[in-house]
């Protein structure tokens, strides 16, 4: 096997960043250009949104439940067990809801996009589409990116609500806290900036996971082995990017909102 020089590796990385940037920019700008494939947008929204609902429901619910369980141990030491609702609400809405939903949807859909588009690439279906006069970015990428951004927004809201419900369940059944008090402290703890932060993040995460999935799919080479490689890379890259970008978005939003 030929060993690539560091210069070639660096060039390859720069090229990958350049190609990803072009694809990411076109996936947004082409949404405003004709033709628009509304049927594909709706189909993707169904696949990504409705299809991801079970994992988001389970993840959100049990994250809220375990959060209540874990924080109660610490809070009871300070005699502040009644603040459980507040802690669960702030953690879920500001951070855990958007990030965990993003990661779960990335695991399910970023890989799905990479494998689907990757299979089309290695069997020349993408070239065939171009040869037939259809722009694959408008037909395949734009519907996936827009559907993911919109659906992740709503999935995050569902995840937040179910997280709070899971926390409420644990608080009342295991910690014997008053349910009304739990919901009341949770409601009072949430301010405008907390909700805004929780709702802005999924827009970025949705864009990242879908554009990364599409990029790896469309840049697939090397047959079925290449499809497998692209799928893995898409999940790893989108998950890591979500966590890294989360830090920077949090910092920026804290600066502007608080």
């Amino acid at each position, binding site marked *: 096997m030929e060993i690539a020089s560091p210069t070639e590796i660096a060039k390859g990385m720069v090229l990958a960043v350049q190609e990803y940037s072009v694809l990411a920019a076109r996936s947004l700008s082409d949404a405003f250009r004709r033709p628009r494939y509304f049927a594909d947008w709706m189909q993707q929204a169904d696949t990504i949104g409705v299809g991801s609902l079970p994992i988001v429901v389970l993840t959100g619910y049990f994250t809220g439940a375990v959060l209540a369980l874990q924080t109660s141990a610490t809070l009871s030491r300070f005699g502040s067990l009644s603040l459980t609702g507040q802690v669960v609400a702030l953690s879920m809405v500001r951070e855990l809801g958007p990030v965990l939903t993003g990661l779960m949807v990335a695991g399910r859909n970023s890989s799905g996009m990479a494998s689907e588009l990757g299979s089309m690439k290695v069997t*020349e*279906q993408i*070239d*065939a*589409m*171009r*040869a*037939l*006069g*259809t722009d694959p970015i408008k037909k395949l990428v734009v519907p996936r990116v827009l559907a993911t951004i919109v659906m992740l927004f709503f999935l995050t809201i569902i995840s937040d609500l179910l997280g709070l419900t899971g926390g409420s369940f644990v608080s009342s059944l295991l910690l014997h806290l008053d349910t009304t008090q739990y919901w009341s402290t949770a409601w009072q703890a949430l301010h405008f900036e907390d909700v805004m932060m929780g709702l802005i993040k999924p827009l970025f995460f949705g864009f990242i996971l879908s554009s990364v999935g599409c990029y790896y799919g469309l840049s697939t080479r090397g047959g079925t082995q290449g499809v497998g490689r692209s799928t893995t890379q898409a999940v790893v890259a989108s998950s890591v990017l979500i966590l890294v970008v989360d830090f920077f978005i949090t910092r920026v939003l804290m600066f502007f909102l608080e």
Partner: protein
Amino acid sequence: MSDEDNLEVTRHRAIVFDDVHLAFDRNQVLRGVSFELLRGETKAIFGVAGTGKTLLLKLALGLIKPDAGHVWVLGYDVTAMKEEELFELRRKLGMVFQESALFDSLTVKENVAYRFIEEGIPEEEVHQKVLEVLRFVEMEETVDMFPAELSGGMRRRVAIARAIITEPEVLLYDSPTAGLDPITSTTIVELMVKQRDVFHTSALVVSHRLQDAFTMATHHFDREQNHMEPIPPGSAIETNTSFLILREGKVIFDGRAPELTGARDEYIREYIS
């Protein structure tokens, strides 16, 4: 040549390759390829594996760009066109990919009608046209099947149907008989001859099988018999079929069958033997 001269020259030719160079990493694949495909002509391209035959088709479609040189298709310099502009031009071209490249999640009907569906043509009209073109390739019974349910030869015929449904001015065939048994190969060759003689479509055919191209050069399609027939000796029937051989990224032969069989070049003689 000025742009106006270029336009005048290329307008009467289906495809013109002008000193085209292309390299991948350090591998120089095409080293100054130049040739012309006249309107109504069929040109079969040969060469050993890796000489860039398929690349010529992809360059003609504008799917890839050359490092140097120009490719003119129906009077347009595809090397200077943006992807958006190329989509319009590609509607006048038809491509049959080596592995058919049918959309595996769509039925045969949806594959064949792909362009019409994209253009929003009414369902009734699309259905009639699909049946007509599937009848042409004798695949009418597969209309509601998925590509995975078809054999290799059947997929190839559906791919031809998809390429010809819009009555393109130029057809590009990438190894249309590769991996097929002799009987199915003859069926595909007959379809290409039928398309050539019935619609007079210009075509570039990349192939590994010399006998297919010789069959195309020595046979014509008899519309009355609905069958491909050998051209009788002394007949005035013109098949308009030529041969092009690539070697190490260069064109070493471009001419008709008699010139090819009479070539003295050692490599060509060895290739056709």
